[in-house]
């Protein structure tokens, strides 16, 4: 076979009706351009801390658009930062342990308690523009999203097989080529899956933080979250339902138009030697793949960027000499690095000291209240976890062991898990108000709303993974129901259950911040709890309390992770792993 023209992947599939598709793709590009321009115009208007939120349905698309833009920017910022962070951590053994520890802690801190200081800082930094508040919200979503992405990228880099690394060394790949041909593809699948989790978390936070009060200042940004909150505040059920419907629509559309194509596409990055059966299909991806314009455009543009880089890099020393993989670290650090490290350490110390000084205003009564709150929230979070586990385990196992049902329910549970629970909070709150119940129990219901789907989703996956021969053994030997559960099902789903519980526990802590304190119809509902104290402190502008409560909640979460979850995780990894 002699080939006259360059080969490309797209040559492999036969294409149909590509003109209309090309037109559609071009239209999408135009639309994206317009969106960027109009966002810019809006941002550089005069500052309007409190945007008037219209409750008409006609305003919904615009609000949805603003929210999506915020989300998208935050996501791409997170992605870029995560890659830079993971890369630095993986290739600098000197600072690696530090960076990993930082990741580990930041990953488990509820971000919402950072909202007020971040807003103040940003408004101070960019005065006179809407941009400051926007930046604050985006930064907040960013902090919620970035850590698991960074961790995923970092651990992918660390698990690249040795021979692949050696191949890239011996064939003298430049850092650029290594990044695009080895590191990025190898990390792609992890990044895609973590992006889904991250963006779900992002929506959760976004809906909550578009509207908030701090001291005597109100901040309100036009967006879906504000729309929903305004509707709740006014007791407008119709508007509220419309808002929630829009959120769900966006989540489902993102799932179909972005995540599924991405998952299907990332399948080719699977590090496997043999092709696996049962891949996820995505019609959207098929359509994109058939677009000749897109393929050749991307290829050509990319080629223009890449070729000069290759040419230049090939002349560098890096590309001419094979460097050993196990080269010892250079003994002396450049003095500049010392200066930078020292300055950073000094700055951190100074800031920490300032924060500590802030705590002077906290009284013993405050402290007692805080500890009571911590205990109450702790109980509530664990109650929510237990309740979720109690109903999701039997239901999940029943679904998982029935393949036909599972195929239908699993994607549904996945979508439910990524619908932000914050969108549903108002409905439950309104019901609570009408029923006259307090937030003490009500907040547990709110936490449940956010957490149970993760567990259900994982339990289904766990039950599906129990090998059928083990199940046959159980029925062959007439296991009693008790035996079936203790000897087969529970050990079988254990690793999945733990994964689900860990995620759910993080989500519940995060939810506590909004679940324990709320404004509905001109009333303030609250109960005793750490989350309530964080919110109350925000409302009253008491930064000392806010800081202390945040420290408290972070300590609780981190120590729970270290003492309980990590051990259970280890147990799941070692003892309850089903090996093929």
């Amino acid at each position, binding site marked *: 076979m002699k080939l006259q023209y360059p080969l490309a992947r797209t040559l492999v599939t036969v294409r149909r009706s590509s003109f209309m598709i090309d037109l559609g793709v071009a239209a999408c590009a135009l639309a994206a351009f317009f969106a960027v321009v109009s966002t810019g115009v809006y941002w550089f208007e005069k500052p309007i801390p409190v945007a008037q939120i219209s409750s008409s349905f006609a305003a919904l698309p615009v609000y949805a658009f603003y929210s999506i833009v915020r989300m998208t920017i935050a996501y791409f910022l997170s992605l870029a930062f995560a890659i830079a962070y993971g890369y630095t951590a993986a290739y600098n053994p000197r600072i690696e342990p530090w960076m990993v520890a930082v990741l580990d802690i930041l990953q488990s801190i509820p971000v919402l308690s950072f909202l007020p200081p971040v807003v103040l800082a940003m408004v101070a930094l960019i005065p006179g523009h809407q941009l400051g508040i926007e930046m604050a919200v985006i930064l907040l979503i960013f902090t919620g999203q970035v850590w698991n992405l960074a961790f995923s990228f970092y651990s992918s880099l660390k698990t690249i097989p040795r021979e692949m690394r050696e*191949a890239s060394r*011996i*064939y003298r790949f430049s850092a650029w080529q290594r990044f695009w041909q080895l590191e990025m593809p190898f990390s792609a699948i992890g990044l895609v899956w973590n992006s889904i989790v991250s963006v779900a978390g992002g929506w959760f936070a976004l809906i909550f933080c578009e509207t908030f009060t701090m001291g005597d200042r109100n901040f309100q940004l036009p967006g879906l979250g504000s729309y929903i909150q305004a509707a709740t505040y006014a007791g407008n059920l119709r508007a509220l339902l419309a808002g929630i419907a829009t959120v769900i629509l966006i989540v489902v559309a993102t799932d179909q138009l972005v995540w599924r194509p991405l998952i299907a596409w990332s399948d080719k990055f699977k590090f496997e*030697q043999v092709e696996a059966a049962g891949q996820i299909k995505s019609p959207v991806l098929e359509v994109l793949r058939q677009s000749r314009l897109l393929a050749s455009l991307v290829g050509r543009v990319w080629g223009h960027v890449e070729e000069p880089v*290759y040419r230049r890099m090939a002349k560098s020393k890096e590309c001419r000499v094979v460097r050993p993989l196990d080269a010892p670290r250079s003994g002396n650090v450049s003095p500049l690095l010392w200066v930078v490290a020292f300055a950073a350490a000094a700055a951190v110390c100074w800031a920490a000291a300032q924060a500590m000084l802030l705590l002077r205003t906290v009284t013993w009564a405050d402290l007692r209240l805080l500890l009571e709150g911590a205990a109450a929230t702790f109980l509530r979070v664990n109650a929510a976890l237990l309740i979720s586990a109690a109903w999701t385990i039997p239901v999940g196992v029943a679904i998982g062991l029935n393949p036909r049902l599972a195929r239908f329910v699993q994607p549904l549970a996945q979508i439910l898990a990524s619908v932000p629970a914050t969108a549903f909070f108002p409905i439950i709150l309104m019901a609570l108000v009408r029923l006259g119940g307090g937030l003490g129990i009500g907040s547990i219901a709110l936490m449940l709303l956010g957490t149970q789907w993760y567990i259900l989703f994982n339990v289904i996956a766990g039950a599906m993974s129990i090998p059928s021969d083990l199940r046959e053994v159980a029925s062959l030997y007439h296991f009693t129901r008790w035996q079936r559960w203790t000897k087969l099902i529970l050990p079988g789903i254990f690793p999945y259950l733990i994964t689900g519980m860990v995620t759910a526990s993080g989500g519940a802590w995060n939810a506590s911040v909004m679940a324990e304190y709320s404004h509905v119809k001109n009333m303030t509902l609250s109960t005793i709890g750490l989350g309530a104290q964080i919110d109350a402190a925000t409302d009253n502008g008491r930064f000392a309390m806010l800081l202390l409560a945040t420290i408290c909640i972070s300590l609780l979460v981190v120590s729970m992770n270290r003492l309980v979850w990590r051990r259970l995780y280890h147990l799941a990894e070692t003892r309850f792993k089903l090996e093929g």
Partner: protein
Amino acid sequence: MQEANTSTQAIVTPQAAHAIIRAEKIEKYYAQPSQSRIQVISATDLSIVPGEIVALLGPSGSGKSTMLRMLTGLSMPSAGTVYWHGKPIAEAEINVSIVFQSFALFPWLTVLENVEAPLAARGVAPAARRERSLKMLDTVGLDGFEAAYPKELSGGMKQRVGFARALVVEPEVLFMDEPFSALDVLTAENLRSELLELWTKKTMPTKAVFLVTHNIEEAVLLADRIIVLGRNPARIRTDFQVQLAQPRNRKSEAFTELVDYIYKVLTRPDAEPAEAPGLQFAPAVRDQRQMRYQMLPHARPGGIAGLLELLLDKGGRDDIYRLADDLAFEIDDLLPIVDAAQLLGFLKVDEGDAVITPSGEEFANSEILRQKELFRNAAIENVLLLRQIRRALDAKSDHSVPEEFFLDLLDEQFSEEESQRQIETTVTWGRYAELFDFDAARRRFVLPDVLDEEIATSEDKK
């Protein structure tokens, strides 16, 4: 040390002057916290000269791969230097390729893109890149597979891509790290002969080939020169030219004689190798370290019993080479079992033959419970670590000792990984011999009856 230096200097051959790659007293060791160090490869001189296929043979864990990586600049020797045309390799612009055991292809790139990648790294323009890659794919017989992804190909096809990628940069030395060992027998044979054809017809511009393998026949089939490595630490046992004409016949007497000779060298790790049949060889560097613990060969008791029974069927004595052939075993599979049986005093190795001893005969003839007893006695008598564990367990009031304790002792002598493997083998042997049991959840050695009791009491509680 002094002595070793003088003896190795003496063997710088006249060829070394025009060597492409020359290693001078390269060593590899890992420093231990307690001042001592674990020597993986002892000071070795080695050169690769144009026009020859060199095979580096050795049992697994003998540091063959590490040697290859030091010669290619992928790994830094702890001491000594590797030179590329007389220039230290860390500064030279070297031109070598490696064909990997696991292929190491990028699964997300097509076959063509995989082959193009090294050319792109060298700044070759896209058109030239494509042309050269297509030509190379044609050469290795992959015409028509350009747009396929590696996972769609069979193992043999994948390794062809590996070869194409290695050859497309026209390397001066082609390194191969067990390139055929992940393939089935027929595919491997096919690829070997194609490689030889490329080499003898000079279709590939490569000046020398360096092959790492544990397959003796493969080495004798392909190589112009064979270097046999010994273990603990790795050192060159023998280094000789193969004077058989190509194509070589596996059935010919000269061939089997050579294979047998290498088997003899490998099965007697401590003896100075005799002279290769009619050939020269370089003197070996002696292992200067005295081991406290023997290195346990990683063999299962069942395997030892199986080998002894087979040997008994053959009249108590057989050629190891033939045994391996009968079992369709590779040297890596068989040697640990032979070593283990030898360590336990069940057999002796004599001139490349395995000879069963009286105790081995008794073992092979006994039923399972008696076998365990014999194994237990032999193990206590011959294996220091097993003896120590058992003593410690008997001495302690709770009859249990943490794994950590023995790992620490072993760490003084073996690398961390090897220590772990030693413990694993010890556990297998100890369990079989009913000397002790191992509680994997608590990572502790326990006496067998202690564990029984614990189980009994927990059952009672129920």
